[in-house]
């Protein structure tokens, strides 16, 4: 880089950076701001940026059982349902994914690479084409409209990726560590739990975070399987707010902020693990 070009170069970098940052943040921030405005203000033109008089009324309305918006959907129930589903399926996925990941990374058995490849490829088919047959399957199992059904479904959908992330991280842990523990009389299970897993903790956190975010955010399958309002999740609750557009958008903003909050927390505190999982495995589907 020519020295005289430096200031221009720096200005160019800064300008591009600001444009990208605004592009990424504006839609989120705009929604967040709307949740503090009043219905009257949201209907006004020209549109103002900051709330004229910031209010938490929209959030109060969401949780106030007497108000209109919470008659059909009870937000505390939605939030607790989503947490139950996301946390339980995350625990299942991490435990079963660790078992399978260990087998794929450490044990030799016929068909190992083929099965792992097959699991990864199966992820790519988890889309709209499975909506109808999943609905039929859950009905025949009697698991429609139940949190248990979604927990099983999300665990099944999330397991291949968790297995893969954990297996690829276990491969990087020297096998000698376990072998020497086993020489000293530890069983394979003991060696796995006491020696290998503590070293694989970052991978377990990565797998858990990815799964939690996916399970918390899932909409399509939840919307076809859950019927009673006592069983619905936050994404269904937010989607049903489409009817509030124009008239009471501040409530949509408040609900969206609540739905996004746990994800933002996971994202900002677990940044390191997130990017790690991403660069390690996202390209595998």
């Amino acid at each position: 880089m020519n020295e005289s070009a430096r200031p221009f170069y720096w200005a160019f970098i800064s300008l591009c950076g600001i444009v990208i940052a605004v592009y990424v943040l504006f839609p989120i921030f705009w929604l967040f701001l709307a949740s503090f405005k009043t219905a009257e203000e949201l209907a006004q033109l020209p549109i103002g940026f900051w709330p004229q008089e910031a209010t938490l009324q929209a959030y109060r309305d969401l949780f106030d059982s007497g108000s209109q918006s919470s008659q059909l959907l009870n937000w505390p129930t939605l939030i607790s349902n989503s947490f139950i589903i996301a946390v339980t399926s995350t625990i299942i996925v991490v435990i079963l994914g660790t078992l399978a990941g260990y087998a794929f990374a450490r044990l030799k058995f016929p068909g190992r690479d083929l099965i792992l490849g097959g699991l990864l490829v199966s992820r790519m088919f988890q889309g709209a084409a499975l909506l109808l047959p999943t609905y039929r399957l859950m009905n025949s199992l009697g698991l429609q409209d139940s949190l248990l059904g979604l927990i099983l479904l999300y665990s099944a959908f999330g397991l291949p990726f968790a297995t893969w992330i954990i297996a690829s991280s276990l491969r990087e842990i020297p096998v000698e560590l376990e072998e020497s523990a086993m020489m000293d009389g530890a069983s394979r299970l003991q060696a796995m739990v006491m020696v290998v897993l503590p070293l694989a903790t970052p991978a377990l956190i990565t797998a858990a975070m990815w799964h939690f975010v996916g399970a918390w955010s899932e909409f399509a399958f939840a919307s076809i399987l859950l019927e009673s309002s006592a069983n619905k999740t936050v994404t269904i609750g937010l989607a049903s707010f489409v009817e509030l557009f124009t008239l009471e958008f501040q409530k949509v903003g408040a609900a969206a902020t609540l739905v996004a909050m746990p994800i933002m927390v996971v994202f900002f505190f677990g940044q390191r693990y997130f990017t790690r999982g991403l660069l390690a495995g996202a390209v595998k589907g």
Partner: protein
Amino acid sequence: MNTSSDRWLAYFMILPVVAAVLAFVIGPTWDVATLSLTQVVMGQERGFGTLNNFRALAADPMFALVLKNTAIWILGGTILCVMTGLAVGTFLAIDSKMTTGLRALILLPWVLPDVVTAMAWKWMLHGQVGVIGSTLQSAGLTEQQISFLGDPDLVMWTLVVVLIWRKMPLVALILCAAIRSVPNEQIEASRMDGANAFERFRFVVIPNIAFSLTAVTVISMIWITAEFALPWIMTGGGPANTSQIMSTYIYQQSFEFFSWGVASAMSVVNLVMLMVIVALYLYVNRKSWATGAAS
């Protein structure tokens, strides 16, 4: 180490994962394939071995429109996603405090629930009080406020723009990582040879990241094909079905019209399309699978 007991231990350990995928992915795939060849009347199965569902699907006047919209969604989405992702990724690969911060921040759209993204953009694109339309109008760029999601000619491409906001960050980060791993000596050598910035990019960086670029293109196609909530919540396929794509059509036929025959036929079309893309993916990635298996 006892290899035969290892083998049984291994099968035992992978059993839950394999069983889960068989039950919730392979099983349903088989079910929808057989359903598509079954006469279904009002949810009742009346005889296997018919192509009537596919005939009904092809006869649906919506079919051609859905295919056209899906092509815009997948091809337009993928191409624009990779192009903007390459541009942003190239920028993020520059060493500076700002780009380091941005590399962390940029994933935010990617991790947010798609229902939240749909609400945020639907609001910004609103026909009367949307900030985008209103800004364009007050800047004198449009006479009237554009209703991006209400205009049949604009709606599909508007959805693609939102899709890019959501999916581009990951493409950018993957390409950024690929660009940053290009050997510095090669770039320096071409600089010595008098190559300008564009030539260095075209003849040194691009060949070095060609593999990542192809892989990320195919994987974007798979992500975009799977995306359902974003278009469904933003438009529900409207106005007048002009933004109906395969995934929203399957949902609508299955759970609003209860035409399971047509829905299962479209699901099979969707699965076949996915298989083609996945085959392409496996072909592109054959090198990485081989090394993955060796390690």
